[in-house]
Structures are given as C-alpha cells and as structure tokens.
C-alpha cells in the first residue's frame, strides 16, 4: 500500500518531467499534416525524416554543432581547471574563512543572470569582444564556477585523508599525488560537474543570442530558435523539434558514454579503500 503510493509519486514525477521531451521526439518524425491536425495526433502512424534532412540542407547545421562543442569544451575545461584547485583548498585546508568564502560563493549564485548580463554586455562592447568566442566562454565559466566549487568541495571532503598520507609516505610529491592518486579517484565527480557545465554551456541561449551575431559563429540553441525565419506567425514545428533532438543528441551520447562515472559521482561515498 505504502509502496504503491510511493511508486505512484515516482511515476507522476517521471511523466511530468518526460512528457515535453517525448512530445518533441514524436513531433520531429511527424509529417506536417499530422503536426497541424485537429484533434491532436499523439502517436503518429507514419513517420518521416524530412525535417532532419531539411535542417542540414538549408542551414550549416554542422557548423553550429562545432561552434557549440568548441565553446562548451573550453568553458568546461576552464571551470574544472579553476574550480578543482579552489575546491581542494576549501576542503582540505579547512581555513577559518572557509565558511565565509562558501557563503560568498553562494551569494554570487543569487544574482539574476539576465541582469548581470546587461553589465557584461557593456564590458563586452568596451573590450570589442562581440562576435568572439571569448564573449561566451568567459561568462559561461564564471556562471558555472560556484556550483563546480561547491560540488567538488563536498566530494574532496569525502576522500579519505589517509590516502594522501599513504602517498606521501610512499614518496609521491604533491604533483604526482594529485595526478596519480587523487585525480583517478576524483574522476567521477569531475565528470559529473564537467557534464553539468557542458550542458549549461551547450544549451545557453540569451548570451549566445546577444553576443554572437555572425551566422557562422552561432550556437545550436540560437540557430534552432531562429528557424522560424521568414514568417514570424507560422512556427515550423517539425524542423524545430528535429533541431531540438539533434541539439540534445550529443548530450545524450556524452551522458551515456560517461554513465558509469556519473552514477558513481551521483552516488555519494562511492570511493572505498
């Protein structure tokens, strides 16, 4: 009885979350008639790949994917490279100010991206960074740093201190220890937070829309949203759904590829000596 209730809750939540995603997936394979049909066709009886083909024929969609990938990879790498040492310091040194710093980091996450963004816009214009990948890479890194630091810090805190001591007694110097002992164990956490950053950067819309106007530098979400093109009143649901699916596919592949690390990273205390 209790179990049924709980399973019911889970099912409800899953449906609630998955429904829009499924809707997009189905729409991307529907013929235009079925999309427009009244009453709504939920599960199409015939499917087409036209929307996908159109996407690549009409637009440089590969280019968009490469742009997104480049920006996402660089900003993910940057935020891990900056965040991991800071998180390690916060976790291991336990400095008296660590609570204050944590608080500060948390406060930063409070500011509405959209408004800080207007401040950034000004900076970008002054530094003439418009239509430069840096205009996206820097804000994406900055926005993700706080979360990266918070997550990695709590992971580092779970790593047994004894391992580092053992490594030092064995003769590892600090760099060797970080690379040969700590890094392999931190991999799941790095992968998990890295993927979260990557997803954010990949999907971000407003910054990408505003700072990049050159056609050949656009990212996927912007390109997809601008599919409407000529007529503003007729939304091209089919191509839009197809673009959504294609834009998401790399992320899904990424997650599947790293799924073992992600599950370890999500499952606290997975590291056992």
């Amino acid at each position, binding site marked *: 009885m209790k179990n049924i209730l709980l399973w019911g809750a889970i099912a409800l939540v899953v449906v609630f979350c998955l429904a829009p995603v499924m809707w997009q997936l189905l729409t991307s394979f529907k013929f235009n008639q079925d999309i427009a049909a009244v009453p709504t066709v939920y599960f199409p009886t015939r499917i087409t790949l036209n929307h996908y083909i159109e996407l690549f024929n009409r637009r440089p969609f590969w280019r968009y994917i490469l742009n997104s990938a480049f920006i996402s990879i660089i900003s993910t790498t940057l935020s891990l490279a900056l965040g991991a040492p800071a998180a390690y310091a916060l976790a291991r040194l336990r400095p008296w100010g660590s609570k204050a710093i944590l608080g500060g980091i948390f406060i930063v996450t409070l500011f509405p991206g959209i408004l800080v963004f207007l401040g950034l816009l000004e900076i970008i214009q002054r530094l003439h960074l418009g239509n430069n990948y840096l205009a996206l890479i820097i804000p994406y890194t900055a926005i993700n740093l706080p979360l990266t630091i918070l997550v990695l810090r709590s992971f580092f805190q779970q790593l047994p201190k004894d391992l580092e*001591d*053992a490594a030092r*007694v*064995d003769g590892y110097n600090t760099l060797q220890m970080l690379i040969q*002992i700590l890094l392999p164990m931190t991999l799941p956490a790095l992968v998990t937070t890295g993927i979260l950053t990557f997803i954010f950067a990949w999907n971000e819309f407003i910054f990408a829309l505003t700072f990049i106007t050159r056609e050949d530098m656009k990212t996927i979400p912007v390109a997809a949203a601008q599919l409407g093109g000529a007529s503003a009143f007729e939304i091209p649901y089919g191509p839009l759904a197809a673009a959504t699916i294609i834009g998401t596919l790399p992320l899904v592949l990424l997650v599947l590829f790293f799924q073992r690390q992600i599950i370890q990273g999500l499952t606290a205390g997975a590291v056992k000596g």
Partner: protein
Amino acid sequence: MAKLELKNLNKTYTPKVIPVKDLSLSVNDNEFLTLLGPSGCGKSTTLRMIAGLEEPTHGQILLGSEDITFKRPGDRNMAMVFQSYALYPHMSVYENLASGLKLKKTPRAEIQQRVTEVAQLLGLEDLLHRKPGQLSGGQRQRVAVGRALVRRAQVYLLDEPLSNLDALLRERVRADIKQIFAAQKVPVVYVTHDQTEAMTLSTKVAVLNNGYVQQLDPPERIYNNPANLFVAGFVGSPQMNLLTLPCQESYAILGDFKVLLPDIQTVPPQIVLGIRPEYVRVARPDDTQTIQGRVYLVENLGMYNLVSVRVASSDSEPVSVRALLPTDQNWSDVEISLALPPQNVHWFDVNSGDALRN
C-alpha cells in the same frame, strides 16, 4: 639499520589543543615499541610526526645520528601501515605493492622479485591482479602490511592495523605480525588503544595519556609494576580493582577490615589500593589479609567467573571488590571470604596517582 630517537617532542595546534606535550623515547633495531593509550592521548600524532606527516612544534627526531625532524615523509625511508589500510582503490594489489618502489626508480626486475617475495610471505599470490574493492577485510589488511614490507624500510610504523578485523582474525593476524616484524630486525613503532595487542606484540610499551609518557617499560613491568593509577587502570582485563580508602595509623580501612599499609614515611589521610581481580582469591585458613562480603554479580568469562563482591561494612558507603574465581562452583549471592595477598597489592598516592614503592 639505526636507532630512532624522539627528543622532547611537542605538537601545539592552539594553546588549548596540545596533543603531544613533552615526549622523549628511543627505539633500537629489533625493538618493537607500542604507543598505548586512550583516544586523544597523542599516540597517533606522535606516529604522524615520526612519519613526517606532521611537523613538531618543538623537539627533535633522530634516525641513527641524522636529524630528520623536518625531512619530507618520502625521503625518510620509513613505511607505514594505516588503520584504514589506505590502499589506492584504482590500482591492483600488484600496483599497490609496487608503487613505492616505482617512485624510487627501482629496476623493474627487482620490483617484481620483491613483490613476489612479499606476496608469498603474506599469501597474496592469487590476489595480485585484484583491485582492493574486491578483497575481504583481512586480505586488505595483508596488502597494507605488504605495501610496507616491500619497501624494506629503516623503520616500520603501524597505526592500529588490527582494529578493523573481527576478534578471531585479529588473534591470528596479531601472531603473524609479531613474527613478520621480528624478522625485519629494524625499529617498529606500533600505535594501539588495545592493551592486549600492546602486551602481546611489544618488547617495550609506552603508555601515553594527555600528551605525556606515563610509563615506558617492557610489557611485564607495565602489567606487574604500573607506575601510576592511569597505567594500572588502563592495562589489564578485567580492570584492576582500584579502591580509595581512608587510612588509620598503619592500616587502610576497607569496609570493616584493615589492610596493612606498606612501609611509607608519613601515613596520608587517604590512599588508593589496587589489586588485579585474578590475584584476589578465596581465603585459605593461613591467609592473614582477608575481607568478607556478599556476591552481588557473577559474570561468566568461560575460563573464570568474574565475581563482584560487596564488602561487609558498617559504614554507609559500600565498597565492592571484583575477583576472578574458578567456574566449578555457583557463586551467586554467596557470603564469601577473600584473600588479598600482600605481594600483589599496589598502593597509589591519592593526589598524584603515582605508585608508592617501599
């Protein structure tokens, strides 16, 4: 091969947190020194200072004639076994054993030969390709010992290596560890809170409390001649009877009975009498120093019964004495007469806690 010496070690974190206050001792080749004490007595901090994982605030650490106080842990040629084993989880057993040697650029053939040797000694041959996560507790413990042995270090440090094993396994591994490290013929420093381990393994025991060495002696002396109340109460199971008694002339008053004091210069108003339960026995007619009382609790220890006796007393506050008595009789609720053999009675000063020796 060399002598390890600690001179006036002190570790101060804050003026209120001083785990090690003033500690001096030395360990020679072939000596097995145990640092024994309750948690928070400074034993682990001391070991970590020897290993180089903490820097002492004052004092010196010497190995042979060399001052190694501030040398890096990796340069000390010491090997350490950790309580949590601290095996590298992403490396196989072989890699765990070999890691220290690889860093020292030992030739590959020699690494292989030394690892194989140690694996044979510890019965790890079949486990070399497993990851630590696939091993049982006992196997992990052996790998941790192996990782230390393979280094052929000048000093071995062991931090409660048995505490994660179950009772029967611990008894067996204890015997193994004693034999293995005796064969190394170098100084060994072992940290534990378990007095049985300290007694069985060591050639020398340092009982620590509160950042100071309370007694540094071979196990027999620690057991039979405790230097003070703390050592007397901490070592030995069941615990020694420790009774604070008032004195009258040259006697201590135990309930309605008198116990002759040792030959001390001035008789204090109070004194602590200590006697181990195993030396308290049922009185025989020729015993001079006896007490009477009623048994109120019998605990069966298998080999013996641990019998708690409330000593007959006209006084309001009853005194209770525990004795180890044979199991061939039912002791519950019996009126009993016990002997306290004078040669087994210890006396301690009430204020300082120090043993009174005549």
